[in-house]
């Protein structure tokens, strides 16, 4: 594990007693935590534990019903202006990529900068091409998402999020829908992004990636964080029974 030289002491996301219900189902039961600027946090846990829901509350794809979330000094409330401001600060990458199938890859990337940031078309395209270069798929710019592989699609999706120049990147199981040989190309890009100093919250089952990149691993179960620690402590010295079981099961294969 490499020490994260980019991590600072400034908090960028503050969550205070966050609760969320889906009808009667209590998904998040009081999450209180702070993420620092430049921090790389990996969130793991069994399915249905609320980990995806938690990161989706940070850009208001899910609404929390109790508690406060403050992102980069802006409180997430029902104020539409705040929601829009936060969404511009926070990029998100989805499990199913969710690229826009009716737009070429480059247009997927320039859409946000042109429509939201009001950037000129030429400047947005130049920036998009630079990002695709960084993702190592510049030659796919003018194809449609359906014409490229899953790994390439996910890298376009990462480029699309980065084009908005976000301060925080959320990854919701970015490699879970990929064929095994494509996982590494996406993880490589994420690793590179981590070393560039981006604040990252990653929901993933890739424990190797977590051990290598994370500053902190949070373990979710039934809507609460039951254990959080630096990777070394988390993997070698888990405290909680549930965590021990999870680690033994995920590291078996």
């Amino acid at each position, binding site marked *: 594990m490499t020490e994260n030289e980019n991590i600072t002491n400034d908090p960028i996301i503050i969550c205070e007693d966050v609760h969320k219900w889906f009808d009667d189902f209590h998904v998040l039961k009081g999450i209180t935590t702070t993420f620092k600027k430049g921090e790389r946090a990996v969130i793991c846990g069994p399915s249905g534990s609320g980990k995806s829901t938690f990161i989706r509350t940070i*850009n*208001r*794809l899910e609404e929390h019903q109790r508690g406060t979330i403050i992102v980069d000094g802006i409180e997430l409330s029902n104020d539409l202006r705040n929601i*829009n401001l936060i*969404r*511009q600060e*926070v*990029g*998100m990458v*989805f499990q*199913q990529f*969710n*690229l*826009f*199938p*009716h*737009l070429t890859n480059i247009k997927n990337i320039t*859409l*946000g900068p042109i*429509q*939201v940031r009001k950037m000129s078309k030429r400047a947005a395209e130049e920036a998009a091409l630079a990002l695709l270069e960084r993702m190592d798929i510049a030659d796919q710019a003018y*194809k*449609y998402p*359906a*014409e490229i592989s899953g790994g390439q699609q996910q890298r376009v*999706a990462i480029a*699309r*999020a980065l084009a*908005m120049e976000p301060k925080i990147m959320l990854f919701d199981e970015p490699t879970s829908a990929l064929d095994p040989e494509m996982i590494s190309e996406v993880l490589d890009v994420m690793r590179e992004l981590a070393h560039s100093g981006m604040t990252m919250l990653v929901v993933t089952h890739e424990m190797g990636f977590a051990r290598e990149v994370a500053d902190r691993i949070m373990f979710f179960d039934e809507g609460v964080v039951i254990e959080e620690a630096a990777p070394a402590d988390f993997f070698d010295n888990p405290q909680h029974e549930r965590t021990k079981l999870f680690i033994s099961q995920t590291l078996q294969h």
Partner: protein
Amino acid sequence: MNNNTHTVIPDKIPFYRDVRFLKVFFQILFLIGIILLAGFLYSNMLNGLRKQNLALDLSFLGSEAGFGISEGIDYDPSDSYLKAFWVGIVNTLKVSIVGILCATIIGFIFGIARLSSNWLIRNIAAVYVETFRNIPLLLQIVFWAALTRALPTVRNSIIISDSIVLNVRGIYLPSFEPGPGFSAWLWYLLAGVILAIIVVLALAVFRHSGQLREPHDTDRPSFISNIIFGAKWAAAPTFLIVAIAGLFLTSEAPFVVNRPVLQGFNYVGGMNLTPEFSALLIGLAVYTSAFIAEVVRSGIQAVVKGQREAARAVGLKESQVLRLIVIPQAIPIIVPPLTSQYLNLAKNSSLATAIGFPELLHIGHTMMNQTGQSIPIFGMVMVSYLIMSLTTSAFMNWYNHRITRIGRSR
């Protein structure tokens, strides 16, 4: 030789086991069956006609129709049956085209409204759709007809903001008509075309000379491509600016608004929709719009949730999410069922025969009563509807093909 292979490769397959033969054989058999059946029905029909002393010929179409038609293109009872039939076709086309336009606009509004986050709007739209979708169309048309007949007399007309008049003789709307300055305005249009050509050429020359200065000459665009570029960006704006300027610069108004005015015992001027036409149009448009609303709603809902989420995560506003991401993906889903609704509307216009609007079937009926030539007239009516429907289908298929090709390479 490999003794383990047991594959049998016959050098000749008997025809009764040959798939290629059997495929063709059964098709030919089926075709023969259909021809025999059709031939039997046709000879049976001819026999029946002979017994009734009716010959199957179309010569009656040339003779004088002798009946009046309440509305439509220029027609006189002394005109031929063929002319009367044509009046019916034009009336059917008129109500169908206007009906399709209205139904599409109303349908899209209510379809999108049904997905609104506003409780009141959403439920008003739901009530609208469920009401008009679930009452028989014939009943609705008769209802609207009764309503238009219950409108006040000419003297007590309902007048809306001095330009729309409702009375027992129908609906009167203001119309735009060429005014005294119209011919002068046509000169502005010509000037607009000439100026547009000049601007396009100038732009192309300017752009081309700019490119000549650039060092790399391998992929330099041709002069023609520069003209196309200029035409794309400059032609329409130049023309429009001149045309609109012309509207204000002509000394006399090129267009006048013709409002209905009371003259003697009737309103004249503007556009008059007869009570029958109004009732049919409202009935068809409202009924079909309820179905179109459902088509639009299901099309929008068929766009997967992840698309909206991704669009929101990029920071787009809700209106942008709908306009840039959801609608473009919903349109290809909406178009095929929308086509069926258009066809339904055109065919349902034949229900107007119940309220006396002289459309195709209504006039066909009158012709049958007068001539007794039921089979050729029925045939003509059916073929006319068929041609209209197939034309609509062909156009919508072409449109669907065009929009699905954009962006969906697979």
